[in-house]
């Protein structure tokens, strides 16, 4: 659905996007992940034909953003970081205006307005001024205007930024809900968001593509071998960590055992193996030795750790986004 090849965007002094290539299949939700200033917004603006690329190509639904921008624009719904609302308009009038801009008219337009106001739960504020709406409502009206012409592709720039936790959940659910009908590409610098909503992740940093893969693969890739966290407690007396450690190391396939912490007679270990699935063996070894097995879980790395590992940096704004000064 979306094909990006060697996309580059140069500004006067900086390179915002540096030879990025990726593809997005139809119906997917893709998370565009990176610290602030990584080039997410720029890439999205190129995809939506707001900015022209300096070099490279981007096609949406088979149409090139430079050659056939009109065709691309017809097929794309875009929610910029701040929803593009005319604050002096009423919700209904605003959606009608956007619908007309996107080429809808007549009964078709009425139907779509009813549909999107229902879908984004903004029907109750249809006759309210946009300027009087809360941030959550504004965001939902922004989503409603993005999907009003039933576009093939939805481009959402930080759709949950600035919302409260409840609104964030609602917005995420709505986005997941929309995924069936649209190919969605959403940007964020919040990692759990990607884990929760997206199937596919594209990680960029300083304008460069760092990784593109499914969420699951990325976690597995960063983890390498399987690793397990287990907590052992003594039945009667406190366990002796070194004994447990020795016992665990004897199990075939175990390559490394680290005692992570020890309190109140319990001890927590991280066990790595090269063999694959060894959790059964671990459990039996512990129980057979007369200890209690309090906890046994795979230590999946959070995407956060993956991200840090991949970008090799701390997760703080690397380059502050250029502050747009009022002229």
């Amino acid at each position, binding site marked *: 659905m979306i094909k990006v090849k060697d996309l580059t965007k140069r500004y006067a002094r900086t390179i915002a996007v540096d030879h990025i290539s990726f593809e997005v299949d139809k119906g997917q939700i893709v998370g565009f992940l990176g610290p602030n200033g990584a080039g997410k917004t720029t890439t999205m*603006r190129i995809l*939506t*034909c*707001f*900015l*022209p690329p300096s070099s490279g190509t981007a096609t949406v639904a088979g149409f090139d953003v430079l050659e056939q921008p*009109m065709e691309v*624009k*017809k097929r*794309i719904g*875009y929610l*910029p*970081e*701040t929803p*593009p*609302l*005319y*604050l*002096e*308009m009423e919700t209904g*009038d605003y959606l009608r*205006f*956007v619908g*007309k*801009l*996107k*080429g809808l008219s007549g009964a078709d337009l009425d139907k779509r307005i009813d549909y999107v106001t229902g879908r984004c739960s903004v029907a109750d504020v249809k006759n309210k001024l946009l300027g009087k709406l809360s941030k959550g409502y504004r965001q939902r009206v922004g989503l409603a*205007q993005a999907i009003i012409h039933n576009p093939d592709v939805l481009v959402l720039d930080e759709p949950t930024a600035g919302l409260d936790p409840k609104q964030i959940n609602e917005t995420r659910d709505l986005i997941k809900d929309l995924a069936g009908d649209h190919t969605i590409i959403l940007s964020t610098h919040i990692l759990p968001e990607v884990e929760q909503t997206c199937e596919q992740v594209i990680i960029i940093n300083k304008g460069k593509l760092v990784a593109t893969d499914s969420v699951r693969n990325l976690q597995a890739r960063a983890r390498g071998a399987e690793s397990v966290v287990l907590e052992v407690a003594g039945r009667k007396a406190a366990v002796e960590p070194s004994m447990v450690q020795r016992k665990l190391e004897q199990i075939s396939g175990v390559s490394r055992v680290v005692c992570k912490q020890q309190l109140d007679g319990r001890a927590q270990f991280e066990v790595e193996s090269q063999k694959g699935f060894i959790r059964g063996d671990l459990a039996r070894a512990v129980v057979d030795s007369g200890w209690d097995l309090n906890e046994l879980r795979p230590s999946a790395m959070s995407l956060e750790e993956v991200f840090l590992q991949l970008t090799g940096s701390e997760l703080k704004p690397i380059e502050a986004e250029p502050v747009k000064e*009022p*002229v």
Partner: protein
Amino acid sequence: MRNIWIICRKELGSYFVSPVAYILLTMFGLIFGYFFWNALAAFLVESIQMQMRGQSFPMNLNEWIIRPLLANVSVVNLFFVPLITMRLFAEEKRNGTIELLATSPIRDGEIIFGKWLAALLLYVCLLLFTAANFAFLFRYGNPDWKPLLVGYLGLLLQAGALLAIGTFISTTTKNQIIAGAVTFGVCLLLFVFGWVSGYDTSTWAQVLSYLSIATHSESFYRGVIDSKDAIYYVTVIFLGLFFTARSMESLRWRS
């Protein structure tokens, strides 16, 4: 065509949903009414004096009232045009709504023309609002209506040209005050360029005087449609909108 109308309707809506349009209408109506009253009073005094001097020279309402009145109103344009145009693009840039327009399947030209047209239609409303004054003139006198219409056409063309310049300037900033102030300055300068012809007759002075937005409206106020002057205004409108389009394009390459 349809897209132009969509944009134009939306812009007109923005003017009339806020107090902007009503305040402009009120102020313009007040100022115009005061000018009209002054011109009428001067005319009455003059005609009484003429009668006392025993001259029964028939005084022409068009010459004595309409022509100076319209010339005065064209000065008022200088103040009202920036107020109308300053928000056109600056506001969209400030609010980020320009991204909505620029990513919709609609051409830059349609956006620009739609916005300019809305500004022009608002100005037409201002002019129509002033027609009430002339209703009195026609009720109690017998002025010629054709020169009056031509005079109005002149005002409209002049406003159209100034509005096109204002539209262009509005694309260059996201600060409405800056857009308004610069538009006012440019319009005023264009207006007074004609002064040089008063003391200088060099080619340079003639060029400057030709460029002046004021010198080309004289013929209209006299009731004459001079194609040379009409072409001047149409050219300025075209150039203003053309530069607006270039400016919008450059926004995309720079931003």
